[in-house]
């Protein structure tokens, strides 16, 4: 399952020209408000006919301007979770949820109504109409509806934007399972770097209708050049890791190329490959091995590069084993520690700051 | 059996009585469809399931005859009518006029209207215009004529007092107590007001003939007379 998009679509005052590939798993479309994310998804879903180009799903053209192919929307079988909900106002929540079931390919595996209603906390609302739902409830119904149609691919446009943290925490693991177990490819639009980092295998960054960066999530998210896109607070590195073992006190030990990391207990068995995201501002740099600290994760490494920002901060790139970590320190600290390329340092990472949200199976 | 008669709308009450008498006499039905003579004639042209046509307008009967739709030599002039000048609550209660070429009809109307049926289209209007013209009165009142789409509507304009005077059939005026007849137009001031009747070629048959004979029988004439009509040939 892979999606290939290469389209051109000029609008008054906005010119869309994007080409990218989504090789399966979760592909995050990332970009500022007005960058063209919804427009791209609309084109893939068939709601917008691009002026030129083509869109292939697993090699099959959904749209090809040259070959005059333009598969009708309902034959594309793409589950679209709209940014603006679009629930059927005259149908109950239950009828909304099951609307697509009739057209789902027979025998296709997938969750049932009860399972979805449970996951999304819609049980007590099944007999209401959308007019009597809160904003977040609507968003959940829209998600469930797309899911129950057993689509060949999910297109999700900010599906969790109106949800509270607790509800997100319930849905995100479900999305991870979808990604890992069902192999359902997902195109995911979100402004939350944490969500993207957690879910995405591929990240495509849009800016004013152009793709400015696309690639595996680890690379794009760790790219210091992308700091502006993601915001300073979200800059960080994503490291491949595998689970070494589970400790009795509820910690899981992960092996990364530069050493060991301790983490709140994970579900997967030892040996599972995973990814760990370490935000630059969660890393403390020390010039000697620190002692008597609550932080359990201390990786030795070597400064590779220093990059000064506009503020009083400096981004330090540290090689720990085969991977690159990013750390944000003040210029004052950089001077105090005499940080310079080649200097041997220790990266101190609080265990608990590698939160559940920032870990995803690779 | 049932005989369908297409009859001018103004014959409704008379025809109802006739149908009852026919039923009593023969046990058969006369079913009458009332509409404007023009509508009925056109329908007959288009093959309406009618056996007998009684028109208020000889012109339409002529047309059907020309089209060869009438049964051979069945056409007969059935009824006569006359037109009268009437006054209603819109006119002075003591108004009395006599129709003559000297009548100052325009002056009598003042700024009121003279209600008539359409003077170029509906028989009562056509006869009225002819009569006024031959009396030399038409030109003076032409601009004051309010033309209704049928004679009953003209009668109603007078009855409601909207028009002080009107010209309608004697049969209509007689039955309406809102209006009073001022005078009857002389028979020679307009073409004879004749209701021709005929059997339609497509509907010809023994029973139709029987019904037609009944319509022209003395018993029927009595009923027509009761409703104010004159009998042609009398």
């Amino acid at each position, binding site marked *: 399952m892979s999606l290939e998009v290469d389209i051109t679509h000029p609008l008054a005052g906005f010119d869309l020209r994007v080409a990218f590939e989504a090789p399966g798993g979760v592909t995050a479309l990332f970009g500022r408000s007005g960058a063209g994310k919804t427009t791209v998804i609309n084109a893939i879903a068939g709601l917008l006919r691009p002026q030129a180009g083509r869109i292939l799903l697993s090699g099959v053209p959904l749209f090809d301007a040259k070959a005059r192919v333009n598969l009708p929307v*309902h034959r594309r079988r793409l589950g679209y979770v*709209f940014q603006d909900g*679009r629930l*059927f*106002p005259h149908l109950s929540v239950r009828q909304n949820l099951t609307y*697509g079931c009739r057209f789902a390919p027979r025998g296709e595996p997938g969750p049932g109504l009860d399972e979805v209603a449970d996951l999304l906390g819609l049980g007590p609302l099944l007999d209401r109409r959308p007019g009597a739902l809160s904003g977040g409830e609507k968003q959940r119904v829209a998600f469930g509806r797309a899911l129950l149609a057993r689509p060949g691919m999910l297109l999700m446009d900010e599906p969790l934007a109106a949800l509270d943290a607790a509800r997100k925490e319930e849905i995100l693991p479900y999305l991870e399972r979808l990604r890992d177990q069902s192999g359902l490819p997902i195109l995911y639009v979100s402004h939350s770097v944490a969500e993207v980092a957690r879910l995405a295998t591929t990240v495509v960054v849009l800016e004013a209708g152009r793709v400015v960066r696309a690639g595996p999530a680890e690379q794009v998210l760790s790219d210091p050049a992308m700091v502006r896109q993601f915001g300073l607070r979200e800059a960080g590195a994503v490291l491949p890791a595998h689970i070494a073992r589970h400790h009795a006190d509820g910690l899981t030990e992960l092996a990364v190329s530069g050493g060991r990391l301790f983490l709140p207990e994970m579900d997967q068995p030892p040996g599972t490959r995973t990814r760990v995201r370490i935000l630059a501002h969660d890393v403390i740099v020390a010039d000697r091995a620190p002692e008597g600290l609550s932080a359990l994760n201390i990786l030795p490494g070597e400064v590779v590069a220093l990059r000064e920002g506009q503020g009083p901060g400096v981004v330090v790139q540290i090689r720990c084993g085969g991977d690159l970590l990013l750390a944000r320190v003040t210029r004052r600290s950089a001077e105090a520690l005499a940080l310079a390329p080649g200097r041997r340092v220790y990266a101190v990472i609080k265990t608990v700051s590698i939160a559940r949200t920032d870990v995803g199976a690779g | 059996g049932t005989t369908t008669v297409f009859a001018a709308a103004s014959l*409704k009450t008379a025809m109802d009585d006739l149908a009852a008498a026919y039923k009593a006499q023969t046990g058969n039905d006369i079913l009458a469809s009332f509409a404007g003579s023009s509508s009925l004639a056109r329908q007959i042209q288009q093959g309406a399931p009618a056996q007998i046509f009684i028109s208020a307008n000889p012109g339409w009967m002529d047309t059907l005859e020309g089209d060869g739709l009438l049964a051979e030599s069945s056409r007969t002039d059935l009824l006569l009518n006359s037109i009268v000048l009437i006054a209603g609550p819109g006119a002075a209660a003591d108004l009395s006029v006599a129709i003559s070429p000297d009548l100052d009809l325009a002056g009598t109307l003042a700024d009121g209207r003279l209600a008539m049926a359409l003077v170029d289209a509906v028989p009562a209007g056509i006869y009225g215009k002819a009569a006024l013209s031959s009396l030399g009165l038409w030109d003076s009142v032409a601009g004051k004529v309010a033309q209704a789409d049928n004679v009953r509507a003209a009668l109603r304009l007078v009855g409601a007092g909207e028009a002080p005077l009107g010209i309608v059939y004697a049969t209509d005026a007689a*039955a309406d107590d809102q209006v009073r007849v001022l005078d009857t137009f002389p028979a020679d001031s307009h073409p004879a007001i004749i209701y021709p009747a005929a059997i339609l070629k497509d509907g010809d048959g023994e029973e139709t003939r029987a019904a037609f004979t009944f319509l022209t029988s003395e018993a029927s004439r009595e009923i027509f007379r009761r409703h104010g009509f004159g009998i042609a040939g009398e």
Partner: protein
Amino acid sequence: MADWLGPEEWQAVALSLKVSLWAIVLSLPFGILTAYALARWSFPGKQVLNGIVHLPLILPPVVTGYLLLLTFGRRGPVGGLLDDWFGLVFAFRWTGAALAAAIMAFPLVVRAIRLAIEAVDPRLEQAAATLGAPRLWVFATVTLPLILPGVIAGAILGFAKAMGEFGATITFVSNIPGQTQTLPSAIYTFLQVPGGDASALRLVAVSVAVAMAALTVSEVLARRAAKRVSGA
């Protein structure tokens, strides 16, 4: 009340009801199709279709009736064919009255439904399509329920119009008691004769009562349909 109206008058009431109901049954499906085409599709001759739909409103009813007579009469081009092929005769039958009423009501039906269709958010239909529903299914399960208040409004307008239709009907199918004499024709007939006003008034009262009852029912139905949509 049974003896308040004579048997012929009851016949006229029954016939008018039958004719009006059939007129609506006849014009609703075509009305919905036409309204949809006018609202959503673009095709050559769209303006012409739109014009034809409005014709019965523009033409004096007598003219419409006459045109119907010329077209659907036994000797008319379409009337003859329908008779030969399907044994379907309109001329001088109650079916013709229903046809006339349907045609006279058609512009009203189409306009109401078209306005309703134009008010439907096409993004909801798109959403249904993304869920795998083919066009016709989308129409039946999304568009149609959403335009229901408009369809009801169109139906009731059409019904009222059909109950009151006179000019085209009497011109097309004449005024034969028990066969083509509808309420308005009967009223007309009474109005044509001296002393008929009282009888006419009685029939007018019946006509108004029937139409008001239909109107009230339609309002209730439409409100219910609208409530479903507003979703509260």
